[in-house]
């Protein structure tokens, strides 16, 4: 089901200051997709999620789920969370400690006054789906973090909601378990035809899980798009910087020619992916470290070829992170550990215009 958010604002007042948690957000979340709200902490992503589910009341705007308006200031509609028919996985899982696994998962069905036999059957099927069969009579608190997480997922799914919401569900797991659970979650959601809204501040999680990502900053949506678009082709400097490691270089547009936008920068003249920026305007050139492929020694001057010198080297396991001084800039590059480099070595690299990204500031 599609979720439509229109002009939603929410302000908090704290110590005499107004905090804009949501600042006139308009957004359409397409049906049957995994949609991620990504942003630094305090950007309003959790507030937006809680507005969708009904735990938070916006100040202005309208929210519709699957064509039904669930909240509207102007039409004076406010459907309480218990009547929105959604599923939600909380950051703390919110597993009720006084109930067994079965009771936790059965609760949404019991509240809907379903018959006992139906409940038993549905809970059994859902627990099987999240691979927790046989855990029915365990006290819910006697489970590992990953298992509690799956109980929370089962509880959110059991009533077959139109939409399921996730509020940073993996942030309480340790790194290794987080990666496993993320894969599992992706597999689970892939099997269901369901709209999933996922909130996180972890960019890897967002890239790995989502069909679409919306990046938020200071209560507003900055950019929306599929993961590859966000990573490789971001329009905003903030997005390019937030979604991955990036070298940001100040540049000025000097020409627009056969499919490239050419800029003058501290690295020299660089042909970039085409953007509609007028000649003479300022822009920021974004270079991902993994696309700066260096070779030893100086190279012949040519289009998009840059020479420089190794300033420092850090071994991080699968690669060396190398700082290169090139022209007036200092760039970070990822280098294969086989390449024997030391500080002070002359190096060069050529840049593929497809990976030279101009972003607006």
């Amino acid at each position, binding site marked *: 089901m599609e979720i439509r958010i229109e002009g939603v604002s929410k302000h908090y007042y704290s110590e005499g200051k107004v905090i804009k948690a949501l600042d006139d957000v308009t957004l359409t979340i397409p049906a049957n997709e995994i949609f991620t709200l990504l942003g630094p902490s305090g950007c309003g992503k959790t507030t937006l999620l809680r507005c969708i589910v009904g735990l938070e009341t916006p100040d202005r705007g309208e929210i519709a789920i699957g064509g039904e308006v669930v909240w509207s200031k102007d039409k004076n509609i406010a459907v309480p969370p218990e009547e929105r028919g959604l599923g939600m996985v909380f*950051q703390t899982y919110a597993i009720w400690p006084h109930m067994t696994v079965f009771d936790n998962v059965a609760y949404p069905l019991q*509240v809907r006054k379903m018959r006992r036999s139906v409940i038993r059957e549905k809970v059994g099927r859902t627990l099987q789906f999240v691979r927790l069969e046989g855990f029915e009579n365990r006290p819910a608190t006697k489970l590992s973090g990953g298992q509690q997480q799956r109980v929370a997922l089962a509880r959110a799914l059991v009533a077959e909601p139109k939409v399921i919401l996730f509020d940073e569900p993996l942030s309480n797991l340790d790194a290794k378990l987080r990666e496993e659970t993320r894969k599992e979650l992706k597999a689970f959601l892939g099997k269901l035809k369901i709209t999933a809204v996922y909130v996180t501040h972890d960019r890897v999680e967002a890239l790995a899980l989502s069909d679409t990502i919306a990046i938020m900053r200071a209560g507003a949506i900055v950019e929306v798009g599929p993961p590859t678009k966000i990573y490789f082709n971001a329009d905003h400097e903030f997005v390019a910087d937030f979604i991955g490691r990036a070298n940001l270089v100040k540049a000025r547009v000097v020409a627009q020619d056969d499919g490239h936008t050419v800029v003058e920068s501290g690295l020299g003249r660089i042909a970039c992916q085409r953007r509609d920026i007028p000649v003479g305007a300022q822009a920021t050139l974004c270079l991902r470290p993994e696309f700066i492929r260096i070779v030893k020694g100086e190279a012949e001057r040519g289009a998009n070829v840059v020479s420089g010198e190794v300033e420092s080297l850090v071994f991080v396991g699968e690669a060396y992170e190398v700082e290169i001084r090139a022209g007036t800039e200092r760039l970070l590059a990822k280098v294969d550990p086989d390449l024997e480099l030391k500080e002070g070595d002359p190096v060069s690299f050529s840049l593929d215009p497809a990976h030279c990204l101009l972003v607006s500031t």
Partner: protein
Amino acid sequence: MDPTRSRLTWSLIVIVGVLTLCPVVMLVLGSFSEGLTAFGKFTLAKYVEVYTDPAIADVIVNTVVFVLGSSLLATGLALFLAYLNNRTDIPFKGLFKVISIIPMMIPHVLFSVSWALLLNPSNGTLNLALKQVFGLDAAPFNIYTLWGMILVEGLLDLPIAYLIIAPAMASFDVALEESSRVSGAKTWRTLVRITLPVLRPAILASFILCVVRGLASFAVPSVIGMPGRVYVLATHLYDLIAKGFAPDYGKAAAVGMSVLATSVTLIYVYRALTAESERYVTISSRGFRPAVIELKGARIPMFLVVGFLSVILIVLPVAVLFYTSLVPYSMVPSARAFSLMSWRHWIDVLDDPISVLSLKNSVFLGVVGATLGVVLSVFVAYVIVKVRTRAAGILESLSYLSFSFPGIVVGVGFMWFFVQTPLYATIWALLIGYIAIYMPYGIRPLSSAFVQVHAHLEESSLVCGAGHLTTMRRIIVPLLVPGLVSAWILMATMFVRELTLSVVLSRPGTEVLAVQILRFAEDGLWGKLSALGIIMIAISTTLVVLATVVGARFRVVEAA
């Protein structure tokens, strides 16, 4: 294991063991023997006599109704207040802190007396006023009933119940409620199915603690129950030793045994429950500010309920005592009453040698007793928190045992003990008894203070070359000051107002304030009683202020 620490642990076990176990052992022995001065042969006669007495059935029924009723009232009110404070947008939340702390400063015996002054059937101020206003023939309320006792005891136990339930409510992960609402449950269903069950350990713990306090309560049963001839076990026991010409300590011990056994069992359950409630703690969130429930139209009425409670808990008792201390006899406040006001009762009390003696004794017990009690508690808390051997575990169990002791029962046990010693009828007997019973109140704040002094702070002092004593003096004690101050305040205020143990152990020459007030109440000398009561509250308050000031200065010096 460090031998000095081991020696310290074992000497503390001996001291605390003697203090807590001696009265119990003496009580058991006493209940099986013939008389107070000579133990004589082993006999079951006292048990048979006491428990075949036809009056005992009524006493037990009264006790059960009184204790359960007041605990229900206190826990229910506490739950209501804690929910309002933590979950709703009720205005003036500062009031809740006042309700939970200030009533502890008003001694139970005075609180009971103030309600007797307001609602007694013959000349209770409130009754007289209602009669005038509505033109009634008879007084509408009679406090001297089982229901009156339940009301007053329930209000007295409200702060302690609130202090147990409110933190549990505050640390409650709101996501547990939110996920229930998202699952489709409305507010009421969420309250019944999720909120209350998750809080169950805290609710039960508060209820049980109230039951134990109700069993040990003597102020309410004596001031409110006895004039209405409603007897509970505590007053029944008191009758056996204080009324008539031949006090029978054997029978009293036999009655006390059942109270003591119940209390000890309940405290055991209580400690198991508090351990369980810690187990109930799930992963807690980063503290997203929970959405509060909007009371909307109920906001002002709910606030009025809370305001009314704070008036009857704090303002009314003090006001009625002050008023009564100034008027010559019970009368409704009026122009005539104000014209008759004088300081006569105050002058009478300060001229009365026994009242002055009781004042001196109580201040002495408060200051000296609390100081000695805190010194002992520091060592005990240190061993419990920092030594952590099996012996330290024994010490911990021993030191919390007296938490369950009903004062009047243990007092009978101490009586059997002190009669054999030269301490009998001296102020030192009271001092030892007080410290023995109230030790947990000193140990608790100090052990939480010790928990906060991280082992590394201590260890780095040792590595720097300081010995154990220097480390204690230079590092640990300064960090402990807040804990020391609150332990001292708790003990001192409890000692100044102590009634239940004193009522057994106090003899001519060792009168204390609370007992003197009880005597005035028995004789119906309300004016003098009120004057002495206000002085008592003033002393408690002064001690609290003094201790706070001294504690603050000590910390400033250390910081400079």
